[in-house]
């Protein structure tokens, strides 16, 4: 029974796909050196034609990947910093995403964007600590935030094989998570949620690294409140059927989500649940504040992120 780390799982998924499919390649800054861990060792194994270092020209190489994808390749792009996705927002949301419909189905754009270390990295401050997954879900890019190593592996494999642009956020606070891998690693279908812990009283939808926090809180409250921990794994498309089934049992909903509150992922889950699902009490969100910018000082950085105490308070609030 091997322990697999989250970072290693991503690395292995990429290695397996590079080995399986010659049309797969990975592009980005310093990917040959593998400083973000994601591509560590792959340049040696697959050579500089498959693991390609790029100049600091994110906009150009993001659309370059789109053009290559139009011609049958399946590029994976590593972004060193979450805010680099802001820089390429036009190339992703306005170009890659729209090509299939605009051409009347003549082409496909199978590109995978990976951010290995999204969200806060202690001490990286304002411009390096964003968690912008809600933006991509809004424009319609398939958006994946794995919480566990086995899901990181399986969802990256599925993303690379998917015929549409897909973005994967690997939270910095999840990269170190280790998981006992008993069965062999397999692809995980995009759009399928995972219930990590069943419960009767309240459904907690947790995103990425916050799944671990939710599990800890569920354990802590076990005597008192029976918490179901629901991990969407894919934010868009979201597994609405699975959430409806969970709420049929619990009737109570809390979402914990590391994106900004306003128009964030948590808002969507609450909105859809309120429209269509069984709720016996007002649902709650735990998120970053509106318009959050993470301050540098560690204690400040931490209070701006959703935390366990806030989750406990939210769970108690819905149980009132």
């Amino acid at each position, binding site marked *: 029974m091997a322990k697999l780390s989250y970072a290693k799982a991503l690395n292995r998924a990429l290695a397996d796909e590079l080995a399986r499919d010659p049309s797969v390649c990975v592009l980005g800054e310093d990917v040959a050196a593998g400083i973000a861990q994601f591509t560590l060792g792959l340049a040696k194994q697959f050579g500089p034609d498959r693991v390609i270092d790029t100049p600091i020209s994110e906009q150009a190489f993001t659309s370059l990947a789109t053009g290559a994808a139009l011609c049958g390749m399946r590029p994976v792009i590593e972004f060193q910093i979450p805010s680099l996705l802001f820089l390429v927002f036009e190339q992703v949301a306005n170009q890659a995403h729209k090509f299939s419909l*605009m051409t009347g189905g003549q082409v496909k754009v199978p590109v995978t964007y990976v951010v290995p270390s999204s969200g806060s990295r202690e001490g990286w401050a304002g411009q390096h600590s964003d968690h912008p997954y809600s933006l991509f879900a809004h424009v319609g890019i398939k958006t994946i935030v794995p919480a566990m190593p086995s899901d990181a592996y399986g969802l990256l494999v599925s993303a690379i094989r998917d015929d549409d642009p897909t973005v994967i956020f690997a939270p910095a606070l999840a990269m170190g998570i280790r998981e006992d891998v008993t069965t062999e690693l397999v692809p995980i279908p995009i759009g399928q949620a995972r219930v990590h812990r069943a419960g009767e009283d309240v459904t907690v939808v947790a995103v990425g690294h916050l799944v671990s926090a939710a599990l800890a809180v569920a354990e802590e409250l076990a005597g008192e409140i029976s918490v179901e921990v629901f991990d969407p794994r894919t934010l868009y498309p979201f597994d609405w059927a699975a959430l409806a089934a969970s709420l049929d049992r619990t009737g109570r909903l809390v979402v914990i989500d590391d994106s900004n509150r306003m128009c964030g992922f948590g808002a969507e889950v609450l909105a859809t649940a309120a429209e269509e699902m069984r709720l016996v009490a007002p649902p709650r969100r735990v998120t970053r504040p509106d318009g959050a910018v993470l301050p540098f000082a560690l204690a400040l950085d931490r209070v701006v992120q959703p935390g366990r105490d806030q989750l406990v308070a939210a769970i108690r609030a819905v149980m009132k």
Partner: protein
Amino acid sequence: MAELVVDARPTGPAPDPAPDPAELYRGMRLIRSFEECALGLVKSGEIVGGIHPYIGEEAVAVGVCAVLRPDDLITSTHRGHGHVLAKGSDPRRMLAELCGRATGLNRGRGGSMHAADVSVGILGANAIVGGAAPIAAGAAWAAKRAGADRVVATFFGDGALNQGVLLETMNLAALWALPLVFVCENNGYATTMATASAVAGTAAGRAAAFGLPSVTVDGMDVLAVHAASAAAVAAARDGSGPTFIEALTYRYGPHHTIEQRIRLAYRTQEEIDQWRQRDPLDVHGARIPPGQREQIDAEITELIEAAVEFARSSPDPDPKDALEFLYASGMTGRSGAVDG
């Protein structure tokens, strides 16, 4: 779905290196007549949203595309009708696209600014200035990796010379010796802004900055464009990497048909008249026998009439399929309305 996987074997014969004057004239006449027809359909409301007419710049699209193989690729711009026709799309399906018909190149989903036809190597017009260049570079990169001797030509205007992503792309193309030809259609203006007041330095200077060989040609003379393109495409095909072509040209019409509704004073009638003296159709038309020219004109007139007939008699796409093709994987999102 028409797969565009790069194939190491050329799928078409290389065009005769020597230009065929009559065919070049026919290509320009087709674009001119097509655009005049389209202007009429904008007026009549059959083309919704208007167009960016290519009239005056025909020699550029025709001169470049004449040296491309069927399996070579191009990317186009908001002013893209000329490129699409010159690369070999069926004018009937192109016009149907402008009219939003199901028989259009994009099944009515793209319209004037997104016309694409993968079957003849057109990766699409792009509505974002400079937006297509890196996509073209990616196609060239894929071809090079596949060992194909396919070449990609990317068209853009002088306005794109100030767009960061184009400059980033020039660096990548030079760095990786991509089989790419940059074609800058310098028509002197970006909408109302004169090139001189927007571009510090020159187009050629931009190319030189990245070590790109460049050539500036008379964009009103199809033979000049043809010669420069033949050299650039040959270089790209034999692995010598990208070339930058600046074609000096002029648009006779408005930036966009809405401009006809507003008074704009960014250029003088004298200037327009001067350029009309060098109308690419006359410059080159004079080189072929009058009889042949008239015959081509007549053939094109017929062809355009047939295209209009085809577009008008084509069905509209079904609104219930509005989001078909949104995801190549076939995934469908939720509707925006209350279901049921």
